[in-house]
């Protein structure tokens, strides 16, 4: 079940226009204004194609761990591991994450090489709302591999009554 970011604050917009109702309404309107940037931005597929530099993006070899249901979008733990011997001749050069509905598609790009030993990275990301995330791995031979995940965010990130 996904909750739209403005559902949490919708109640603040009801009621007569009185001083207290106006304050509550103002908080609601501010919250909606903070969410609006999520609408118009370069698409996820465009960002993926840009990373791949015109090369074909194949599904596979990337193990992408991200919880399917998240109780707060402010800090979502992610782990990406890529099958690769990580030798000088055959290794992962970059691992990147892109999203569908945050204000911008880029999230993080890791640069690796044979000194890494393993292609395994972890971090924490922000998710503004329920959406699709793509993990991409670029190999030393130029091939690009990917994995996708759909995440349901029950409370959006970056919305807070700053008091």
């Amino acid at each position: 079940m996904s909750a739209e970011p403005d559902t949490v604050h919708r109640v603040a917009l009801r009621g007569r226009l009185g001083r207290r109702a106006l304050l509550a309404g103002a908080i609601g309107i501010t919250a909606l204004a903070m969410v609006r940037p999520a609408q118009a931005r370069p698409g996820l597929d465009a960002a993926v194609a840009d990373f791949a530099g015109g090369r074909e993006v194949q599904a596979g070899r990337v193990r992408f761990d991200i919880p399917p249901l998240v109780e707060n979008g402010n800090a979502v733990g992610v782990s990406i591991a890529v099958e690769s011997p990580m030798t000088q001749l055959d290794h992962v050069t970059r691992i990147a994450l892109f999203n569908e509905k945050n204000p911008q598609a880029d999230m993080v790009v890791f640069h690796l090489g044979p000194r890494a030993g393993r292609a395994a990275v972890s971090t924490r990301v922000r998710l503004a709302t329920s959406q699709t995330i793509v993990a991409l791995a670029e190999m030393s031979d130029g091939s690009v591999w990917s994995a996708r995940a759909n995440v349901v965010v029950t409370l959006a990130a970056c919305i807070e009554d700053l008091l």
Partner: protein
Amino acid sequence: MRSMINVPKTAKAGEIIEIKTMIAHPMETGYRTGTNGTTIPRNIITRFVCTYDGEEVFSADLFPAVAANPLIAFTTVALRSGTLTFAWTDDSGATQSESVEIVVA
């Protein structure tokens, strides 16, 4: 800013070691609106670099989607005893560096 680095103190030559780093930083996205209606300016860490005896072995480009107080975990091969240095650079170009020693048998 306070940082926390988890690296094994010793390792066998050729062993793949896990490194976990965390640094206190608000990672202000630049998309948030403050109480007076103006946008809170962006202030994030944009780059993280790990060098092993001066040679870069791992790096990351960070965007506003990285959570506050960023945690970055990765691996590296313990080739020889030496110094692991971690550098975080923010939007203003300022860099914070921390180093730890590793003993490789």
